[in-house]
């Protein structure tokens, strides 16, 4: 087996004094499609931004992020810029605000190519057209001259994806790429994303709150809650035999699409997701967990090899 594409060790993200990401370890295998599941406040987006070195001003990342034998957090800003958009790329949730409203789509798609491949204006434009064809944007030649507001939501997200695959990256991070889209468009975008990373052997980290999407696209899954990864493993394994009470509760809280529940009631998780810095000490889920005992006030480590879980009372 080849070396992992990315290895994150003890990653913390600090918002002022508060730890928003509280020591996260995970590995992205070469060419794997990994889903990162979490709700608001879970720290999933901050984790991704830390990997990309795109954290907002004032937020600090600590720990280690190993990529090709180098710890990204020890690289200079310049070296990290060189990787960004070339080897590591990212697709964001809201494609309208994520594109420069004043710049033509073609120029935006050409930007990473001109920056990293030093292509001339004409070469970059020709390549941009190919890319728009690859992401199946209708009328690519015309779309090159369009401004973002002239495209539909789905088309904009295709443009974002074209930018992200322009330099054939090693790792592509997609943060809720379809949340802002209609169901029918969402399916198309996910299929496109999956096809592109499969063809290129790109390692995918797909961040979402939607478990069904993860089950469709990803072969590995990470479950985050309260700034920690609480469960990880192969998707089929984690979804059919969840070991963390939170994962199980999430799965049971979703109304099934293909059957009617006998009594019409869902299994609900009590309470609300705490705000930043308001999670309890120890296991972040313990205040909402039915299995809570006194030992839960110390944080359990991730235990297990193929399907590790951070819980004192894991489900069998």
């Amino acid at each position: 087996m080849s070396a992992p594409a990315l290895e994150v060790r003890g990653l913390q993200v600090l918002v002022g004094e508060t730890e928003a990401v509280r020591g996260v370890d995970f590995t992205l295998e070469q060419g794997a499609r990994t889903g990162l599941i979490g709700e608001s406040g879970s720290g999933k987006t901050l984790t991704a931004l830390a990997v990309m070195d795109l954290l907002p001003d004032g937020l600090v990342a600590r720990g280690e992020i190993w990529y090709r034998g180098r710890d990204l957090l020890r690289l200079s800003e310049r070296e990290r810029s060189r990787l960004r958009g070339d080897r590591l790329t990212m697709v964001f949730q809201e494609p309208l605000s994520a594109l420069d409203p004043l710049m033509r789509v073609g120029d935006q798609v050409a930007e990473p190519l001109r920056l990293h491949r030093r292509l001339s204006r004409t070469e970059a434009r020709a390549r941009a057209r190919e890319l728009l064809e690859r992401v199946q944007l209708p009328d690519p030649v015309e779309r090159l001259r369009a401004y973002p507001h002239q495209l539909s939501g789905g088309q904009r997200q295709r443009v974002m994806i074209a930018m992200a695959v322009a330099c054939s990256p090693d790792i592509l991070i997609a943060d809720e790429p379809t949340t802002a889209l209609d169901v029918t468009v969402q399916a198309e975008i996910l299929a496109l994303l999956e096809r592109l990373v499969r063809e290129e052997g790109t390692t995918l980290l797909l961040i979402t709150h939607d478990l069904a999407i993860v089950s469709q696209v990803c072969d590995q899954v990470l479950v985050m809650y309260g700034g920690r990864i609480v469960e990880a493993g192969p998707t089929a394994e984690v979804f059919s035999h969840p070991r963390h009470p939170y994962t199980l509760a999430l799965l049971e809280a979703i109304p099934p699409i293909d059957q009617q529940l006998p009594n019409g009631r869902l299994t609900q998780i009590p309470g609300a997701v705490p705000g930043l810095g308001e999670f309890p000490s120890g296991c972040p889920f313990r205040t909402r967990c039915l299995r809570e005992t006194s030992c839960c006030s110390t944080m359990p480590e991730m235990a297990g090899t193929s399907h590790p879980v951070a819980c004192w009372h894991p489900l069998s």
Partner: protein
Amino acid sequence: MRRRLPPSLLAGGVLVALVVLVAVVATIWTPRNPTQVDVVRRLSGIGQNGFLLGSDQLGRDELSLLMAGARTTLLVGVVTVVIAVAVGVPLGGLAALFGGALEEAVMRVSDVLLAFPALVLAILFAAVFRPGTVTAMAAIGIAFVPSFARVVRGAGLQVMEQDYVTVARGWGSGPLRLMVRHLLPNVGSVIIVQATVAFAIAILAEASLSYLGLGTTPGTPSWGLMLAEAQTYLAQAPLLGVWPGLCIGLSVLGFSLLGDGIRDLLDPRLVERMAQT
């Protein structure tokens, strides 16, 4: 929930409080009679002849004049803002509430009025009517009306789009009820911010007008007037050209900071953040 007050709010609040305090004290007591002329001891320096900040070209006590000037400044600010709020807020509110032809009319009229900056309108009024504090206040107040109407309309339209208004309309809440129950309470903060900004502009406009001799009439202490008189004596008494300007600057700064601070305090993003944590 821990709320940290924006520093600009504190600084602005302190400055404004100071101006108000001085103005209030000046109505009861000033070190000397600010209108008492003493030609013998004119243009005294700081501390000379018992004048704490010196005396002006007529031998009046500079400090007392400055204190009394604060009163004029505040009076002009308050009256103009009251005029602007009294006319502009209902107009803007009604425009947001009813939309349609009424809104169109209010907006068009305010567009035209906006082409008259406060100072130009005041000069026009001064030419036609008697120049003086009342004329100046009326002109500045009228010139502020459109900005209040626009701001209230803008904020009001946002309120009207909120789902809680939709719900209230579903029960058949009438325009009056929507205005009193939802619109005004929710645009109140915007009005306060706009009022502090307008107050600062009014102080500047009054000072400029008085400097030009079109505002406060000679005899009534006014910072702008004092600067106009000081200009002749810049060579002999340069400080006379400094004190009143400093007072104007600090008052304007106070109100601008206060407005900034209130805005920061009420910034929707900030409010959102506070709500989340």
